């Protein structure tokens, strides 16, 4: 890949150029994906009262997200240490949120499946809201994990957590619709609202992505190089093809068709398209992250020479 302005993408650390983000790959991408989609499904199902959706969302977070994180860690047996600094680290905050979600979600599911009335009134309300708020937190906190540091300019923007949240909501709505249709227990009022929400979220995500790329294009040379990678470079077929065309535009057209045709299998195709776009977006965000080149300011005309 030939980079702009004669600054290459370095192949190793002794070479000058943009450096790729190589640390977080498909396992972290999977963990983020399962966290967003699972928590989104849980929250949407909490609203619709779909117990199967809630349980599936809970399982996706607890098994998929946590499993991928544990597989990724160099020292998984020490994972509990990651909860030590919630005052400073977004990863620590995420661990706390996941722990609270695990406990409160389990209690809520237990009470619903077993129809237990051990906790009613105040305690039930507290458990409900703890599960709902922790799920909401899981939907967007990975955006903060990525945007917290200025090292990768393409990630260092407040829009990223919002993008994670809207994508998580989209994934949750899609899965909720699919579960409802497959099990044939969809509530007509909820299904109609969810279909409307799905279309709205698809448009919002498309707009957010456009704004994100526009902001990054005008940010600095490193962020612009990432935009080039996404639109013209090695990740273009994934970003343009899978994220935009399949994940957003095709999903939107199929969703509109689904409202007219009401064919059950079409919902599975919609879900496959949307989730493919969702997962691919997280992966290309991780893979296309670039570090700024390190060099004497005199060799970087775009950077002002200044004392620190």
């Amino acid at each position, binding site marked *: 890949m030939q980079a702009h302005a004669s600054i290459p993408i370095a192949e190793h650390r002794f070479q000058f150029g943009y450096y790729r983000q190589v640390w977080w790959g498909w396992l972290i991408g999977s963990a983020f994906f399962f966290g967003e989609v699972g928590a989104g499904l849980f929250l949407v199902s909490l609203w619709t009262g779909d117990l199967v959706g809630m349980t599936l969302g809970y399982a996706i977070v607890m098994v998929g997200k946590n499993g991928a994180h544990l597989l990724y*860690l160099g020292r998984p047996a*020490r994972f509990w240490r*990651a909860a*030590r600094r919630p005052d400073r680290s977004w*990863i620590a905050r995420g661990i706390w949120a996941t722990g609270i979600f695990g406990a409160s979600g389990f209690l809520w599911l237990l009470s619903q499946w077993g129809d237990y009335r051990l906790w009613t009134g105040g305690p039930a309300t507290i458990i409900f809201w703890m599960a709902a708020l922790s799920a909401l937190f899981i939907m967007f906190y990975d955006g903060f994990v990525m945007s917290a540091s200025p*090292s990768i300019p393409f990630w260092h923007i407040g829009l990223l957590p919002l993008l994670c949240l809207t994508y998580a909501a989209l994934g949750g709505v899609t899965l909720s619709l699919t579960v409802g249709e497959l099990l044939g227990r969809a509530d007509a009022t909820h299904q109609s609202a969810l279909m409307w929400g799905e279309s709205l979220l698809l448009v919002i995500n498309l707009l957010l992505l456009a704004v994100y790329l526009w902001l990054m294009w005008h940010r600095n040379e490193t962020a612009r190089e990432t935009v080039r990678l996404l639109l013209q470079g090695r990740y273009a077929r994934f970003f343009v093809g899978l994220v935009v065309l399949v994940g957003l535009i095709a999903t939107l057209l199929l969703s509109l068709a689904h409202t007219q045709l009401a064919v059950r299998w079409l919902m599975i195709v919609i879900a496959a398209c949307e989730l493919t776009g969702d997962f691919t977006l997280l992966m290309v965000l991780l893979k296309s992250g670039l570090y*700024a080149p*390190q060099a004497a300011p005199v*060799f970087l005309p775009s950077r002002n020479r200044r004392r620190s």
Partner: protein
Amino acid sequence: MPRWGMVIDLKRCVGCNACTIACKQEHGTPPDIHFARVVTREVGTYPHAKRTFLPLLCNHCEDAPCERVCPTGATYIRPDGIVMVDADKCIGCRACAVACPYLNRHFIEPGLLQAGYGGNGDLTPFESLKFAAFQEGTMTKCTFCAHRVDQGLEPACVVTCPTEARIFGDLDDPDGRLSRLIEERKGWTLLPECGTKPCVYYLDE
């Protein structure tokens, strides 16, 4: 309490990588892990082409993003400003590596220490001795040779540099050599826009 820092004179650096090797010898880092390295770049076109060198190491930032994002507290900053990793607390999440704009964090892949440089598990006595200080599945980084500094010695890369391009000292000493060099020769740091306040300065005037 001093605040340790370094000044690297790019006019003196000849790109010999002696610092890279000295660091390797001092710390006995596993394969493909270099706490110190020299980035080479060719600039200009013939007949005015030349090679330029940029020695790199951990900047021991005052506002270190690696320390800020560490969820376990494994990365910490000593009172003298040296950024360290406590491998016993590290879980290998690599958040610090992602957060470091200077790419000066290194992950010790599982199996790396057992395989050694030969790749066959047949470690030399030197490897056996030095690798004992590392833990697989954790992060490691330049320590500014804290074990030497604590004994009143300078880091290995500073002592080794044949052109004396590296100067180590107390940044808080207004009359010290570092402060004077930075002031007189307009010292600058890498990627100041990241706001990390590095303690490694460069001179090229």
